[in-house]
């Protein structure tokens, strides 16, 4: 009991300290050899960390759908893509208006949010009419449709396979160039914090409780006179909008985007991340996103290293495919470590008792 009341204060304080620490990183000279490519103030490292934050934010939004509401969606990349493409396209359309860059960005962000909201609620309203595997398939189908649209350069807006780019003319100068990578890093961090707080708020709200209850036992929720549909739609839409926020961060961070972020593979990656971190754990999604990003990066570096090149083919080929290694780790986690990283931590803390999220 004392541990519980203790946690009520310890967790937020710890969280705030972590965020402050993360915010200070661009001003610090810390090195973690083998994990980060360079000292924490270097643009390369900041870029990777920022990328990890945005992936973590995206994973958090997916956690709302999969972990909280228990819905297996294969279409979450759709909303991330909507945010990324939406922002870039609206910014370009605003360009001739010659607004101050800051104002244009603000307008573009708002417009994209509205668009994401409309798409998410429309897709959700349709997809949630079915459940289970059918739901997974409809979401996959919608995401696939989006993927087809952007790859086709529909209306000449999405740039086909090339994707779209955000040029220096479209955004404030403080967001452009290697010199300003700390600014983009802070934006990514802010997005992660924002998405985290939104997730906490949704999970602890009445809607969140009902969504979790409907995951366990739909019948009981119906008996209580609540419609699981409405609640799920809210969660689905909120998760979609939050994913779009992460997507907007990504298009700014990378000065553009390609159709890859709308692909089914990208959603599958997201699933891998959430399972890696631990299904049902909020911080599992964050840790999963960061670990995945760093692992992916390190494994790619490893693949092109001399060490690997000198190995015989049986070892060289598998080890030079990051996705092979990540996929294998994922399979092992699903089979032997339900609960992922967060699950391990949880078991260690509760002294080896097996336990599940929630």
């Amino acid at each position, binding site marked *: 009991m004392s541990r519980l009341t203790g946690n009520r204060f310890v967790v937020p304080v710890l969280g705030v300290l972590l965020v402050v620490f993360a915010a200070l990183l661009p001003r610090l000279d810390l090195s973690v050899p083998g994990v980060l490519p360079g000292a924490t103030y270097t643009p390369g490292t900041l870029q990777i960390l920022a990328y990890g934050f945005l992936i973590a934010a995206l994973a958090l939004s997916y956690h709302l759908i999969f972990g909280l509401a228990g819905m297996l969606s294969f279409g979450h990349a759709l909303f991330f893509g909507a945010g990324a493409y939406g922002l870039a396209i609206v910014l370009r359309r605003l360009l001739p208006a010659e607004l101050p860059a800051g104002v244009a960005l603000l307008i573009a962000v708002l417009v994209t949010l509205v668009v994401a909201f409309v798409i998410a609620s429309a897709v959700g309203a349709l997809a949630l009419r079915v459940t289970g595997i059918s739901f997974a398939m409809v979401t996959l189908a919608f995401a696939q449709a989006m993927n087809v649209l952007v790859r086709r350069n529909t209306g000449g807006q999405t740039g086909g396979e090339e994707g779209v780019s955000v040029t220096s003319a479209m955004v404030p100068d403080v967001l452009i160039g290697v010199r300003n990578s700390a600014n983009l890093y802070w934006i990514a961090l802010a997005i992660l914090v924002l998405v985290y707080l939104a997730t906490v708020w949704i999970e602890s709200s009445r809607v969140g409780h009902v969504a979790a209850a409907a995951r*366990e*036992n739909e*019948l*009981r929720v119906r008996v209580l006179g609540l419609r699981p549909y409405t609640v799920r739609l809210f969660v689905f839409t909120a998760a979609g909008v939050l994913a779009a926020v992460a997507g907007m961060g990504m298009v700014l961070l990378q000065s553009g985007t390609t159709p890859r972020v709308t692909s089914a593979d990208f959603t599958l990656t997201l699933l891998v991340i959430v399972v890696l971190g631990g299904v049902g754990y909020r911080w599992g999604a964050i840790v999963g996103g960061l670990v995945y990003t760093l692992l992916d990066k390190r494994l790619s570096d490893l693949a092109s290293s001399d060490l690997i090149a000198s190995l015989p083919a049986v070892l060289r080929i598998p080890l030079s495919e990051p996705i092979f290694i990540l996929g294998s780790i994922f399979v092992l986690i699903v089979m032997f470590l339900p609960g992922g990283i967060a699950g391990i931590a949880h078991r260690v803390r509760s002294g080896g008792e097996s336990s599940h999220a929630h």
Partner: protein
Amino acid sequence: MSALLHVEGLRARVGGQQVVEDVSLDVADTGVTALLGRNGVGKSSTIKAILGIIERDGTVEFDGRPIDRLRTDRIVRQGVAYVPEDREVFASLTVEENLTLATRQAAPNRGLVDELFPELRERARQRAGTLSGGQQQMVSLARALLNDNRLLLVDEPTKGLSPRLVGEVTRVLRTAAEQTPMLLVEQNLQVVREIAQDVVVLSGGRVVHRGAALEFLDDQDLVHRHLGVAA
């Protein structure tokens, strides 16, 4: 009399709900033991838990050997046949295919089944899904009786049948019980009176009464209290 099936402290959950709380019962190695109780008290769930169709905890011993960790098909292959509550015939398969599927031994009791259910032979090629409820019940019983079993678990075989068919099914059950001990869930107390020797009564997932069938049925108070009806 000794127990063929011994159940102790059985618990089971369905859909996140504890529906079998703590059931202990014995099934004698001859005759019919009836499992009674109002609707929804967990009779069917108890049987499913014994068979491992739903996840369960507790001790289940069959002929002195524990079976509570075994998979359903292993339990059945030890000679425990199951006639489920809602017949559960394979609707898209023919009557013949339903029976073939259920056959576990080289020489099935085709003669017995043909004798008990002459109608089924005429309808061998009909899809089971197009049979009437009574005919489906016959298929379901026939699937069990085709094999030489050591125990029958029969769940509400007379549910929804016309009085004439109830009589028919009762006759079949009595014949079967001469060979094989049976745990029978039954709402029709007349049927219970005719063929059961012992009763076990459930309420709220627990056993609330155990004893000889006739003694229980003749005690109006007891019947009214546990089943809410007059015997």
